[in-house]
């Protein structure tokens, strides 16, 4: 049975991993690229408008090149729109991101070349306009914030090249500032977009992992756990050894399936407490019940540490010395953040007045005293032990 259980564990882990590394293209990325595809068309229309108007007032000195750029952007928009529908994974490849950056920088450079001298710095509308931002999205998703920021920083030098090709007169300080500001603006945009892409990916991968885990949990819940329960019940009387190993397999599997849900991302009082109790009883044969009455009110940090530490020590004592079969841990967090806890076993018990209680004095009483709390030990030889803790 133990073999069977670990095989299930491996299978589940494998499913989780497949989800995690399946692709850097996750659903919300496709949504982003869909929006970007629409923006491309708007920018393309804007570009057509600029070339038509500029050709009308005679400020374009190389109209053929200008229209060629328009056709190029049309091609890019068509490609992106098709890809987002047919093969969106193309959009997050580094080579596509590189071609996007090349297009954006090319548009920035050509902007100076096709217009009459004096166009740069004078007209606010250029062929490239916000095209580099679109490229930053592609690079951000494909290569992350650092590469995106670097690509963004290249927009400034590209515009400097445009200035040269525009036969613009000597650069003044304000022009240089403007070029540097352009670099900073697009570098920052690239960094932010790349960071957002990473964040989206992380959130979605975690959600997908959790979904996969839930699916596995549901499937196992409906089959394996039912069989475990039946075997445990039927063997309890006439084959205690088998019952014991099934109980362990059952517990390991539950910890794997349900444990991670509460102990994974959060470090709430309850999840840390659960983790601690599971950890300390995992090698014992005790039937453990952990009851937490808790509405999410987090006790102060030092109180949490002391109470969980004291409970951990009390549980360790039960595992080590009590010779018990059942252990019940009860923890109640009052709405005002005060904590009451009880660690109770059905073991051999002892005489609290005469025995130190196996280190109860130091490890538990002092921890509670440190936060102004109180500890009661209720025990009688042969009648089990209950350790009661009040946080103050």
């Amino acid at each position, binding site marked *: 049975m133990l073999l069977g259980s670990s095989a299930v564990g491996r299978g589940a882990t494998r499913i989780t991993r497949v989800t995690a590394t399946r692709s850097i293209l996750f659903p919300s990325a496709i949504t982003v690229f869909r929006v970007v595809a629409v923006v491309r068309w708007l920018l393309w229309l804007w570009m057509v408008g600029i070339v038509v108007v500029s050709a009308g007032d005679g400020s374009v000195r190389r109209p053929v090149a200008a229209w060629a750029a328009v056709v190029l952007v049309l091609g890019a928009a068509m490609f992106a729109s098709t890809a987002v529908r047919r093969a969106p994974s193309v959009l997050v490849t580094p080579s596509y991101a590189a071609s996007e950056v090349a297009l954006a920088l090319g548009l920035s450079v050509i902007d100076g070349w096709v217009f009459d001298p004096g166009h740069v710095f004078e007209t606010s509308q250029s062929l490239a306009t916000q095209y580099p931002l679109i490229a930053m999205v592609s690079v951000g998703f494909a290569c992350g914030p650092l590469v995106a920021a670097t690509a963004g920083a290249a927009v400034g030098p590209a515009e400097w090249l445009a200035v040269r090709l525009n036969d613009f007169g000597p650069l003044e300080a304000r022009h240089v500032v403007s070029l540097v500001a352009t670099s900073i603006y697009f570098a920052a945009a690239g960094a932010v977009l790349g960071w957002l892409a990473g964040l989206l990916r992380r959130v979605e991968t975690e959600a997908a992992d959790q979904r996969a885990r839930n699916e596995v949990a549901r499937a196992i*819940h*409906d089959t394996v*756990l*039912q*069989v*475990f*329960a*039946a075997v*445990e*019940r*039927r063997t*309890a*009387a006439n084959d205690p050894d088998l019952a014991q190993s099934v*109980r362990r397999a*059952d517990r390991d599997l*539950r910890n794997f399936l*349900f444990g991670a849900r509460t102990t994974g991302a959060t470090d709430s009082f309850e999840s840390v407490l659960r983790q601690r109790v599971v950890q300390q009883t995992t090698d014992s044969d005790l039937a453990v*019940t952990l*009851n*937490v*009455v*808790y*509405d999410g009110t987090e006790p102060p940090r030092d109180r949490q540490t002391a109470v969980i530490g004291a409970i951990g020590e009390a549980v360790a004592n039960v595992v080590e010395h009590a010779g018990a079969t*059942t252990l*019940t841990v*009860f923890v*109640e967090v009052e*709405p005002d953040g005060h904590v009451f806890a*009880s660690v*109770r076993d059905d073991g051999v018990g002892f005489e609290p007045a005469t025995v130190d209680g196996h280190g109860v004095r130091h490890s538990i009483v002092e921890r509670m005293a440190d936060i102004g709390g109180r500890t009661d030990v209720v025990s009688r030889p042969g009648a089990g032990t*209950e350790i009661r803790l009040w946080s103050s």
Partner: protein
Amino acid sequence: MVVVTPDTTIRLVVADDHELMRSGLRTELGHGFEIVGEADDAEGAIDVITARQPDLVVTDLQMPRGGGLAVVRACATVCPIVILTVSEAESDLLEAVAAGAAGYLVKSTSVDEIRTALLAAAAGEPVFSPSLAALVLGEFRRLARANHDDPLTERERQVLQLVARGHTYRELGGELGISPKTAENHVRNILGKLHLSRRSDLVRYAVEHGLD
């Protein structure tokens, strides 16, 4: 509700979509129980309970067509219903108890304990585990905060807490200086208040949302 004597045979309906569980109960419960009907989904269970009018129902929580919750909602007035669950973390567990279930047992419970608990349930006693007590305690905390009114008396709260800490009725009776019978009556009252609170919650919801 039946008066359980050594000769009593409890007429039982078992609802579970796992054949393994049903066959287990069939073969294991033995003397004192007669399974008068079985079902593998909620609708079938409601039909067979209505037709056979058993003394006791044992039902799984997760079943097709509504699950154990639907069975409890439809049949809690016919006879005591005990939920048999594979995990105490089931989200519907408290809901089922609040809707009138007599309590629950975890499926891995040993046959002897199941038999004892079912006999008690057939006699009208709540099947009340420490975990369920903790769930109920938390639920009253939630109700108290939502309605700014705690329906539990201080004594009832103490009883609930002691059960959640793993005390038996006899032990907690000793602790509080009351008889085990009184302790059990407290538990019955607590469950009654839970049903009432839930019902008034539903009524309030209906009124607020303009439903009849």
